[in-house]
């Protein structure tokens, strides 16, 4: 278990929206303590029996630990700053298409206030048997000792399901997000997984763009004794083209799949060619 547990109290900013309502319902089914929703103009209403408030400030009596933020991209900066400035120590941003300069400012403020930030454009964090904050499908998980970190959504579910179907289970799964600037990166998460007693093996699902996989590989080489399996997507992506994830772009020859695969291999990380191959590489 890392960052969150069965006692983590979660508020949802944007809970009355289509996505917010659906996914908070799924989170409640998973066992997450969703204590309040925040939707300006909707206070006094309820979603899944949970009270909706006007502001984050109005929920502070209940001592929330974390906020899931699911409001439209133009309002993300305001919502995230509201959560941070009200002292929430974990924020997770689901929304995609957030302007990167807004993200930059949120990240800087989160750092300054010592806030753990996941996303944007992320499927969230799941600790099976304890807590899920985000949109990962409930049925694919089984409690176990494999930690997964990934920059994508659907591909993460694919890999979690393959791991579960092969008879393994997960300790923590974090979707970091597909944007060029994100709160928590591979180099942050690898340290956390390395120190987590519930995690015995680690899967890193990287993709083209940036240099976070390379940095994580360097850390693993120096400090990590737990077995790590890697997968890198975007090998066939043409340079300069954004393949959906704004973060997945090969710029001027940097951030290529080859460089990441080489960095993984030189750190002793086994690299899978296909997502389906990952479970057998854990044995």
């Amino acid at each position, binding site marked *: 278990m890392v960052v969150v547990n069965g006692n983590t109290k979660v508020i949802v900013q944007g809970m009355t929206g289509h996505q917010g309502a*659906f996914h908070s319902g799924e989170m409640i089914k998973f066992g997450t303590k969703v204590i309040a929703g925040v939707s300006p103009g909707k206070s006094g209403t309820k979603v899944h029996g949970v009270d909706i408030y006007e502001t984050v400030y109005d929920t502070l009596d209940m001592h929330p630990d974390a906020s899931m933020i699911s409001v439209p*991209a*133009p309002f993300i900066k305001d919502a995230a700053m509201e959560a941070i400035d009200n002292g929430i120590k974990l924020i997770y941003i689901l929304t995609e*298409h*957030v*302007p*990167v*300069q*807004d993200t*930059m*400012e949120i*990240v*800087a*403020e989160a750092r*300054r206030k010592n806030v753990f930030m996941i996303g944007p454009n992320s499927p969230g964090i799941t600790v099976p048997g304890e807590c899920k904050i985000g*949109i*990962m*499908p409930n*049925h*694919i998980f089984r409690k176990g000792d494999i930690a997964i970190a*990934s*920059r*994508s*959504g*659907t*591909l*993460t*579910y*694919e890999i979690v*399901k393959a791991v579960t179907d092969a008879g393994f289970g997960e300790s923590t799964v974090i979707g970091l997000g*597909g944007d*060029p*600037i994100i709160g928590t990166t591979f180099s942050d998460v690898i340290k956390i997984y390395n120190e987590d007693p519930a995690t015995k093996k680690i899967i890193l*699902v990287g*993709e*083209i763009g*940036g*240099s*976070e996989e390379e*940095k994580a590989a360097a850390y693993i080489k120096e400090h990590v004794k737990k077995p790590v399996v890697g997968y890198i*997507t*975007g*090998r*066939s*992506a*043409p340079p*300069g*083209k*954004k*393949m*959906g*994830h*704004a973060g*997945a772009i090969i710029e*001027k020859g940097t951030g290529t799949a080859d460089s990441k695969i080489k960095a993984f291999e030189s750190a002793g990380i086994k690299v899978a*060619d*296909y*997502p*389906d191959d990952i479970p057998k590489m854990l044995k």
Partner: protein
Amino acid sequence: MNLYEYMGKEIFKKYSIPVPDGYKIDRVTDLKQYEFPVAVKSQVLSGKRGKAGGIKFAKSGDELKQESEELLSSKINGLQVEALLIEKMLNIKKELYLSITLDRSSKAPIIIMSTEGGMDIESVPEDKIHKIVVDPLIGYSDYISREAAEFLELSGDLKKQFSPILSNLYNAFMGEDALLMEINPLIIDKTDNIIAGDSKVTIDDNALFRHKNLIIDDPEKTALENEASSKSFTFIEMGGHIGVIANGAGLTMATLDALTLHKLEPRNFLDLGGTDNIEIVEEAFSFVLRAKPEILFVNIFGGVTKADTVANGIVSSKKKFNIKEPIVVRLSGIHEEEGRKILMDNGIKAFSDMNSAISELAKMKGVE
């Protein structure tokens, strides 16, 4: 989105960054009588434009007309020249490099400068480059200009001219939601004026809602890609034969990778996104079909997107568009069994895992 030089220079002007006198034309009849000599610059989004013959010079009206006609009917590095920027020639004394971009590692804007302007910054030695990271919450302060001017060996009046250029470039970068603003070269002319010789500007697509004046068709996308983008699909054309529809950018990329490793060439990237709507599936098919693939491959991991909804969308698309090309489907996740049954009942091959589906495609293409 990358902007043409003339568009970047319009932004520079708006933020009081000096640019050469000039104007943009789309056709020769728009040429104006002007002070000569002038530079005739092809507006194409490609590096090494000068070396490829995309920049000419003219000393008279006749020369200008002739050079313009030639450039407007030519291709530079494979790109058709659609517009020219006609600019007053500068008498260059020195060329500097100045840019602001996003530093993914420090998660902040970074100012990059060099005394070696006019060439590709990648080929400039590290000790000739200076970088300053700006804290986005503190923003710009004049000490940054002083530090930069010192590195660029600017003093006296040149330093006075340079300071507002850099602070204005920072304001332009933040104000226009840029991912990159590059001036290469930043020219010092023989009368000691500092002028932006070129512009390279990339705007964050996700921030275009704040810059409605910049909403144009992305010059680097095909017509079909731009149309798909207006319908909120990420659709990218590639060279191969297998039309691809998958859900989630990561899974779609993984699908293209798996096809390529099997020596199967994808025709496109299309991310269906998180939808549970048959009509969106049909719309996705309409784009992929217009790219004329030989075989269609649908790879879905059901979550928010239910597998049976996609199956119904595939069946209805097949009827609606009278699809003759073979369709191979992989359906997994929520409602996968219902989904595969719907497809089988309609004579469409459906698999539960990606590797089996791709093996089937390989068999069909005879590459196995």
